[in-house]
């Protein structure tokens, strides 16, 4: 007897809607259904076919009961699946036995760690938003509030996930789906932080787990009530009892809603005792204690009585952990019960009995039987990771239309539940599948359909976003219109992006349009890597005749004029070098020349409408005439080229006029940036970011360099700054100059109660003066010596990760009278060594000093490089080099 079949047909999202022809659709289906795994072929498509999920870990990933029902009836359990039913010829009992043995086999492959976790409704609420905004709904069906799928017939099916996964196993899958499904149809969605967890809690929110109490934990200004705008739910789930410790660390300003049923052992009067700041206790429909919380008082004692009948009685308590020295106790007494906290065993989170998950026990005999089925039924043909031999069937070249799997009524071949349309597509493609040579256009079309790229991106001739899903695409910059929410169009993309940037986006998880809520999924290099080259070959636009630029500086300057507030004011809408634009927040243009091909840049600037009919980017050369006719004689090509030349300098370009200063992160452009305040270099710190992308922090209290680092500079929050970049070299506290009486003496630094230090050592800070690149020369007094220190950033020879730029440190001493020998601590750290003449190292730092100087390497805590200095009257210069 055959089980009732649900005739949905395997769903390949986007396939039906795509604009590729029927034969191409047939080819897509041949690959998506992995026909070549049974029907061997040496044609190229065989290698590109979608692989089935890897099964060696399935016991840890999937609930054993789900596994059983899915094998028994794939299409009934998960309508739309591409998994065929391979037991059509068996009777019901054979099916059940075979299935059971297959499950024992699959679960015998490795130790299984499957377990069930309670869903967190707070995380699920976030997960619901993420599921609908990150791009999941481009392939999977969006859901209504109850979780009903709204577009299931055209969506990649998920089935009843709460029966299949645990939160833990689904999170693991979402974080790296390609590990289990190497063919990348389920891509890596690049979920950040807790996003995978939140989506898992959402998709599994119907999971039932036995427990004692339900809880929801809130944080914020809880004394204002849980409805306050300043209160947020933080987490929810099941907890054993009313003890705060059972919830882990509960911080001040928290409220907890508990709800559950208490098993009353005998009829009688029960008393509840509470110590708390505030809270609401309700038992069996009656208020027992009602006390509004207050942030201004300590905990108080409360009690209340109620007569309860035997059996399950609902109990709910909202407890506010707020006010002075918050503490909480909750006790009950009654007939035969001494006053004490309510035992976990008396509580249940649900009135119905929820069975606990029982780990599956593998029977090795059944597993051995299952292994035989796995081979015989051909499971191993697709699921090729479990070490079972495959059993090939009739060769692909011998396949006939409407025969075997393609027949509508065969029972002894795998049943895919194909729809008539799908069957016709495959029939139509069968003959040419092995011989047809697809051109690049067709290859691109097939890939964009197989991976449903057209679920998010429009490409002419291939397809576009499903209108029914379009409204789910959202973004954070409404000013950008549709471009601010819908992923970019892919028509012409090969003529637009540089191959390197396309590779970055497609294969390395880079992205530029951070305002789009949808992520750019990663499908794996072996699956979609070929697109980079093919787009480049296929997408051709006319070549622009580039203008001759005789004076590159003039051109860059004109670019500078146009970018800024007095020109076209590009930065009014576009972010620039990480600094947010005041208005629209359009994409950051500082690296545009790395991402965009120059030819396309010219074409686009001349007529943005040509590429996006709804673009809000204005045309600055309407009708071929510049809106700034005075610059470069108003020549459009020269002006566009000037913008390009300017932007080509990237972050090093001269900072545009009118650039926003709102961002807390300070970016360095063509000149140095300075920040002051507490932070890395004490309280009187001065941070300097240099144009060569190296930075230092100077402590103007002790007049000493505290930190060198590379890469990004710093962020400020009024009164303080924080270092951003990396490769840090830290120097211990201490003044720069001191006359050591003995080399055994400690180097002086300011202790907490050295109130007059370092003025009592002759120091007085004098500030700094900036050079034309706005780099500071620090000035201070050391006794009778005026000191000026200038750090000059030097470009490095080669390109390492953060560059190999280094500092040349020029010290200039001015004194009216000759000075006796004193020491200069040029560097210090945990280990200082002399490398060669004039070259020393301190940990990661290399220090070069003039070879004429006999420097002292002093071991100790810290280990130091000391330079003895004797100054004649007048000016003396000392030059050191710091590399790291």
């Amino acid at each position, binding site marked *: 007897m055959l089980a009732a079949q649900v005739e949905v047909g395997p769903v390949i999202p986007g396939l039906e809607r795509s604009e590729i022809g029927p034969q191409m659709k047939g080819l897509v289906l041949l690959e998506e259904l992995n026909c070549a795994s049974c029907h061997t072929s040496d044609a190229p498509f065989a290698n590109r076919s979608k692989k089935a999920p890897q099964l060696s870990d399935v016991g840890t990933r999937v609930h054993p009961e789900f596994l059983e029902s899915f094998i028994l009836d794939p299409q009934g359990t998960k309508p739309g699946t591409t998994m065929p039913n391979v037991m059509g010829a068996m009777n019901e009992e054979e099916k059940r036995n075979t299935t059971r043995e297959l499950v024992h086999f699959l679960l015998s492959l490795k130790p299984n760690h499957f377990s069930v976790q309670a869903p967190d409704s707070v995380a699920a609420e976030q997960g619901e938003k993420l599921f609908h905004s990150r791009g999941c709904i481009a392939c999977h069906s969006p859901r209504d509030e109850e979780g009903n799928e709204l577009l299931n017939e055209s969506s990649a099916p998920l089935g009843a996930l709460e029966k299949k996964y645990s939160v833990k196993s689904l999170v693991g899958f979402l974080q790296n789906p390609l590990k289990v499904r190497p063919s990348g149809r389920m891509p890596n969605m690049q979920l950040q932080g807790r996003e995978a967890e939140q989506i898992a809690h959402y998709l599994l929110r119907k999971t039932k787990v036995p427990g004692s109490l339900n809880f929801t934990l809130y944080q914020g200004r809880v004394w204002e009530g849980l409805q306050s705008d300043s209160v947020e739910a933080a987490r929810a789930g099941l907890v054993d009892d009313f003890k705060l410790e059972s919830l882990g660390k509960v911080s001040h300003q928290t409220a907890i809603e508990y709800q559950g049923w208490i098993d009353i052992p005998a009829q009688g009067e029960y008393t509840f005792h509470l110590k708390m700041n505030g809270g609401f206790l309700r038992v069996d429909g009656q208020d027992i204690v009602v006390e509004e919380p207050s942030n201004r008082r300590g905990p108080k004692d409360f009690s209340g009585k109620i007569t309860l009948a035997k059996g399950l009685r609902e109990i709910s308590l909202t407890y506010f952990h707020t006010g002075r020295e918050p503490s909480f106790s909750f006790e009950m007494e009654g007939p035969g019960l001494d006053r004490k906290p309510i035992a976990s065993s008396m509580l249940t989170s649900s009135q119905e009995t929820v069975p606990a998950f029982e780990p599956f026990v593998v029977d090795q005999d059944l597993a051995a039987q299952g292994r035989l089925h796995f081979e015989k039924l051909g499971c191993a043909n697709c699921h090729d990771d479990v070490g079972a031999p495959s059993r090939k069937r009739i060769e692909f070249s011998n396949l006939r239309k409407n025969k075997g799997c393609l027949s509508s009524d065969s029972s002894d071949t795998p049943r895919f539940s194909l729809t008539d349309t799908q069957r016709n597509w495959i029939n139509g493609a069968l003959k040419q599948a092995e011989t047809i040579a697809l051109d690049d256009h067709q290859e691109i079309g097939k890939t964009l359909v197989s991976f449903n790229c057209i679920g998010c991106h429009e490409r002419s001739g291939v397809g576009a976003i499903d209108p029914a899903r379009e409204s789910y695409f959202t973004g954070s910059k409404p000013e950008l219109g549709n471009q601010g929410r819908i992923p970019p169009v892919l028509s012409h993309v090969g003529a637009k992006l540089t191959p390197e940037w396309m590779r970055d986006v497609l294969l390395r998880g880079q992205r530029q349009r951070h305002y789009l809520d949808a992520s750019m999924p990663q499908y794996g290099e072996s699956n979609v890597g070929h697109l980079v080259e093919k787009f480049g070959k296929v997408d051709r636009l006319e070549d622009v005749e580039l203008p001759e630029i005789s004076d590159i500086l003039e051109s860059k300057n004109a670019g500078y004029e146009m970018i800024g507030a007095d020109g076209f004011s590009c930065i009014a809408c576009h972010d620039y070098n990480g600094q947010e634009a*005041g208005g629209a927040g359009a994409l950051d243009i500082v690296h545009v020349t790395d991402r965009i091909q120059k030819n396309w840049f010219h074409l686009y600037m001349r007529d943005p409408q040509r590429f996006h009919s709804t673009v809000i980017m204005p045309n600055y050369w309407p009708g071929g005439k510049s809106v700034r006719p005075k610059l470069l004689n108003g020549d459009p090509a020269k002006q566009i080229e000037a913008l390009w030349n300017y932007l080509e300098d990237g972050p090093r370009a001269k900072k545009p006029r009118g650039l926003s*200063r709102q961002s807390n992160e300070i970016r360095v452009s063509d000149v140095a940036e300075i920040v*002051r305040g507490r932070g890395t270099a004490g309280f009187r710190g001065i941070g300097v970011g240099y144009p060569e992308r190296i930075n230092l922090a100077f402590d103007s*209290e002790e007049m000493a360099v505290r930190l060198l680092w590379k890469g990004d500079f710093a962020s400020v929050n009024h009164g303080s700054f924080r270092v951003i970049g990396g490769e840090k070299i830290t120097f211990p506290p201490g003044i720069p100059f001191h006359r050591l009486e003995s080399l055994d003496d400690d180097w002086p630094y300011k202790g907490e109660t050295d109130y007059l230090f370092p*003025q009592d050592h002759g120091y007085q800070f004098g*500030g700094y003066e900036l050079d034309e690149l706005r780099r500071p020369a620090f000035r201070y007094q050391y006794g009778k010596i005026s000191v000026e220190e200038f750090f000059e950033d030097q470009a490095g020879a080669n390109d390492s990760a953060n560059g190999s730029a280094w500092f040349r440190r020029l010290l200039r001493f001015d004194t009216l009278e000759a000075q006796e020998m004193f020491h200069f601590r040029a560097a210090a750290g945990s280990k200082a060594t002399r490398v060669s003449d004039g070259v020393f190292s301190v940990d990661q730092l290399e220090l070069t000093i003039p070879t004429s100087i006999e420097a002292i390497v002093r071991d100790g805590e810290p280990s130091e490089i000391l330079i003895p200095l004797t100054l004649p009257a007048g000016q003396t210069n000392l030059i050191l080099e710091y590399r790291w």
Partner: protein
Amino acid sequence: MVVFRNLILFLALFAALSVAAEDLGEAWGTAEAEAEYYPIVNIAIPPEVPMRPGSFEILPDGRLAAGTRRGDIYFIEGAFENPPVPKYHLFASGQDEIFGLSWKDGVMTATQFGEVTQISDLDGDEVADRYETLTNNWGYAQGHEFAFGSKHDPEGNIWVALGLSGSYHSNNLFRGWAVKVTAEGKMIPICSGLRSPGGVGPNAEGAMFCIESQGPWNGSCSLKHLKPGGFLGHPASYNWYRFVPGMETPAVEPNTPSRLQIEKKRVEELVPPAIRFPYIKMGRSISGFRLNQTGGKFGPFENQIFLGDYTLSIILRATTEQVNGVWQGACYPFREGLATGIMNVEFSPKGQLIAEDSQQTANGPFVARSLLRFSESTGAEKHPSRFGRLRSGKMDSILRSPSR
């Protein structure tokens, strides 16, 4: 079964009352009447400018200078036109929070947390390139240690009031003191006993004052006279007398609990506040202040002190007088209807009062559009005789008979 209904009712009532008492922006319910005499005009701040000023100055050419908590100094042209047509120019950047600006002889002197700095433009492009430290000889090693600076006094000194290390302790040199910094960079300690001072400046007679915030030893905000050798009430800063040549640690410490008037009899050096501002009714976090010497352009309050409040969104005014060698005075409501965040005030050459408040946005407080505003006297000129009838009740009589 016990239900605590009564208690809930009482609490709810109490909560409602306390909310009403602290309703910011509607301190006296007089905004409408005041607007007739002192309309408030917004000076637009472009979105790319992070404003939040901690101090203002008027440049010799009539431009407004604003020193910000981000550590920038902007020169603003056209701010005083009505309507304003402001153009912002970034003169200096990269400093710590600036709570004092004073322009003299082509140099801008800025008081920031760690030092007094003379900022100047050497190459004439109107962008500062020299930041010369006048002094940094006070201790600064804890987060709450604010520093507020005055304008130059007639001798060219900058007075700086140094907050304690929090409310109770003075852990670093001269915290809780006011010091005077000479043009040569010499730092002269003046008086001890401050807690968390705000603005510093003179009254019409040239005596220097600073604002004190309520907290330990200070029941409410007050205006304190920075009397040389004086002790202004909070004894945490006693520990620095040993670093001041010519000053002795007071022989007696004030008692608590007690009253300043009682303790004044015991502690010889104690200088009680000239004005105490009734808490909440007139000020909760009074910040900066400025003497009105606009020659009558700002109405009838010439030579009076105008003060901003950081949390209550109000402007107050105050008068001082010396009786038996002791400064005393009175305070009056002036203008409400602003938003919170007023750190300082300034008078324009046209006799307008400049302040900046901040509007809280959905993204959190203080980040987005701040409002730089001026308030100018119109009604006072139009209806001088009606001026005293601005308010009703008790305040009315105070207004009718200013102490000066």
